[in-house]
């Protein structure tokens, strides 16, 4: 007999259920109980009831940060916006509201977010927990700088308000605290008024790593800057890059460029999608080399010309391809994102890129950005340069990344926890001197034994 379940079928009722969960990198895949509360009060009750628990937003952390050792509380049911004050541009939303939700509602009304990460599909709770950064971190700081306050559910069930003036230590430790201080229920952010949906973009070609860093350093007057590095270039061309500089375009800028584009065009909804079982072998050296060559020729053609680029492709280029993480196949991938302090950056970055280009299996492109000082004791950024690369998981990968970690530790750098799936405790502890502050707070609130993600268990947080 067929076993089609129709609404209300009693036997279809399931336990919340052990499921296998992974981050955006599809590595590692781990068993956990997944809970789906439908309100902030429900989330607080779940937190109180379970141990070995962590909050999970949109699942865009790459590794094991948002998978509880026993249970995982999804914030997706906490998806209501609460209030907006146009005079102060203050917006209060629940933790599961995404940046895409906010932009969809407020961009047409002339507001943006001063800090956005590389994808708009992250939740506000996740953005705070990872203290995400954008292409303007060196000037404007991380996501925490646009957060005025949030409410945090502690493992004992207490709900506390946190801001720079109220529970300030808890506020700071929660920025970049990877959900290990409590579950963020809602937050009040300040939006950024914009005149148009467009950015005025300059493209510069840098023939090698030194030139790319010179370009980034020389662009201190630009709000947004980022370099896309060709990981396959070797020798004298090691680190050859396209450097993109951008400003929010004003109406006057648009007039000056002779543009007849609408200041706020209606959104395009077409998205490409990667098939479920994209074979990993399609990503090989030859195909990547062709892609990079085309990419650079196209970019170089734009050099010296100011162009208007819509915020969506400028800030979120990969969001146009749904499920792009599937291109790495079944075994998944690791995104390696490190930051190197300013004074050691040139030499160490060159060393890393050289090893990566020799190995030859890194992503199409790597991203190089400047960072400023971090917002909380556990925030990833420090004054220096951050390099981001994707590596498909393979038998030899982790030993190779350990070698990169050794260079990093020696230079006083650190790895981004939102991307991490494999670093050692020693690498982690040397990179995060603020760890003691987080551990203290976890002791005080009883979080140490109750709020445990696979990441925190692995790294001994």
């Amino acid at each position, binding site marked *: *007999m067929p076993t089609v379940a*129709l609404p*209300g079928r009693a036997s*279809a009722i*399931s336990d*919340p259920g052990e499921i296998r969960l992974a981050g955006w990198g599809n590595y590692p895949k781990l068993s956990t109980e997944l809970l789906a509360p439908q309100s902030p009060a429900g989330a607080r009750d779940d937190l109180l009831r379970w141990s070995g628990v962590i909050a999970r937003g949109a699942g865009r952390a790459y590794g094991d940060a948002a998978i509880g050792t026993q249970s995982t509380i999804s914030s997706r*049911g906490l998806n209501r916006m609460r*209030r*907006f004050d146009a005079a102060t541009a203050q917006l209060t939303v629940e933790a599961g509201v995404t940046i895409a939700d906010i932009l969809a*509602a407020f961009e047409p009304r002339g507001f943006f977010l001063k800090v956005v990460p590389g994808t708009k599909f992250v939740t506000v709770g996740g953005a705070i927990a990872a203290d995400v950064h954008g292409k303007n971190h060196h000037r404007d700081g991380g996501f925490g700088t646009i957060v005025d306050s949030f409410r945090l559910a502690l493992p004992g069930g207490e709900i506390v308000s946190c801001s720079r003036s109220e529970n300030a230590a808890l506020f700071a430790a929660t920025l970049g605290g990877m959900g290990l201080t409590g579950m963020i229920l809602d937050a009040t952010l300040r939006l950024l008024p914009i005149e148009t949906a467009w950015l005025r973009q300059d493209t510069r070609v840098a023939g090698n790593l030194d030139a790319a860093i010179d370009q980034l350093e020389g662009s201190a007057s630009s709000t947004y800057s980022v370099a896309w590095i060709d990981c396959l270039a070797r020798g004298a061309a090691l680190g050859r890059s396209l450097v993109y500089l951008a400003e929010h375009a004003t109406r006057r800028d648009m007039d000056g460029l002779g543009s007849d584009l609408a200041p706020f065009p209606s959104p395009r909804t077409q998205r490409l999608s990667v098939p479920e079982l994209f074979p990993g072998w399609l990503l090989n050296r030859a195909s990547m080399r062709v892609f990079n060559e085309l990419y650079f020729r196209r970019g170089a053609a734009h050099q010296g010309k100011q162009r208007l680029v819509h915020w969506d492709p400028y800030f979120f280029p990969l969001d146009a391809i749904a499920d792009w993480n599937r291109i790495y196949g079944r075994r998944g991938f690791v995104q390696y994102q490190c930051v190197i302090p300013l004074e050691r950056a040139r030499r160490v970055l060159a060393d890393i890129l050289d090893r990566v280009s020799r190995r030859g299996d890194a992503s199409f492109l790597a991203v190089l950005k400047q960072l400023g000082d971090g917002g909380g004791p556990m925030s990833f950024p420090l004054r220096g340069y951050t390099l981001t690369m994707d590596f498909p998981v393979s038998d030899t990968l982790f030993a190779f990344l350990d070698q990169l970690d050794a260079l990093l530790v020696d230079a006083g750098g650190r790895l981004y926890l939102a991307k991490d799936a494999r670093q050692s405790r020693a690498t982690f502890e040397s990179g995060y001197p603020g760890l003691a502050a987080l551990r203290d707070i976890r002791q005080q609130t009883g979080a140490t034994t109750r709020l445990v993600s696979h990441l925190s268990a692995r790294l001994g947080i």
Partner: protein
Amino acid sequence: MTGTKSILVIGGSSDIGHATALRYAKEGWRVTLAARDLAAAQRNADDIRTRSGVDTTVQSLDVLQTGQLAGFVAGLSVLPDTVVCVVGELGDQLRAQADPELATTIMRTNFEAPSLLLEQFALAFEARGSGTIVGVSSVAGDRGRASNYYYGAAKAGFTQFLSGLRNRLALAGKVRVVTVKPGFVRTKMTAHMKLPPPLTVQPERVAEDIYRADVTRPRDVIYVARRFWLVMTIICALPEAIFKRMRI
């Protein structure tokens, strides 16, 4: 410009009610959410106001207090252009079999109360000469099954009520009645159930189809997802001698 139009959602604390109200608000309709759980309705109203910038209010209403329904409609400060009733409760079939009180509540919540309330709106809309009544029923009302026959029977009753009401109002004039039959929808009500992905929709999809059936492409009866029409046609065509032995 539709800025002066208004919608009232009965069951405004629900996910489908929230999504439907938000869909209309994005077109500039003023929104009122009526619900028994005022705090939950207020949370939805805040969301709609924040996202759309549209004026949104909440009203307390317990539809099971059927003696108060006429007074509720008469007491509305503005009679809405469209009323959408998403009131419903799945209930626990196994418990209902042993507990007549629960069985009664399921039947009253899904059939009796919504029908009596919408009759009041039909009268008021008729008197005004305009309006749309949207009743959210369920595919579960198309054929009774072991797993949910109190819920299914009540929804069947509600579907037939809407059919009859539409017939009466169509003969009389300008008031429209739309029957909406969702299949699987990912909501609070189904959060604990495993649903087959190809047949499962988000509340926003139900909202979009309701808006379309009311405003942009008027229809009498819609299935959401549309492919559920085929599924239910097949299920309804099965001979009872076979159907009664199936576990579906």
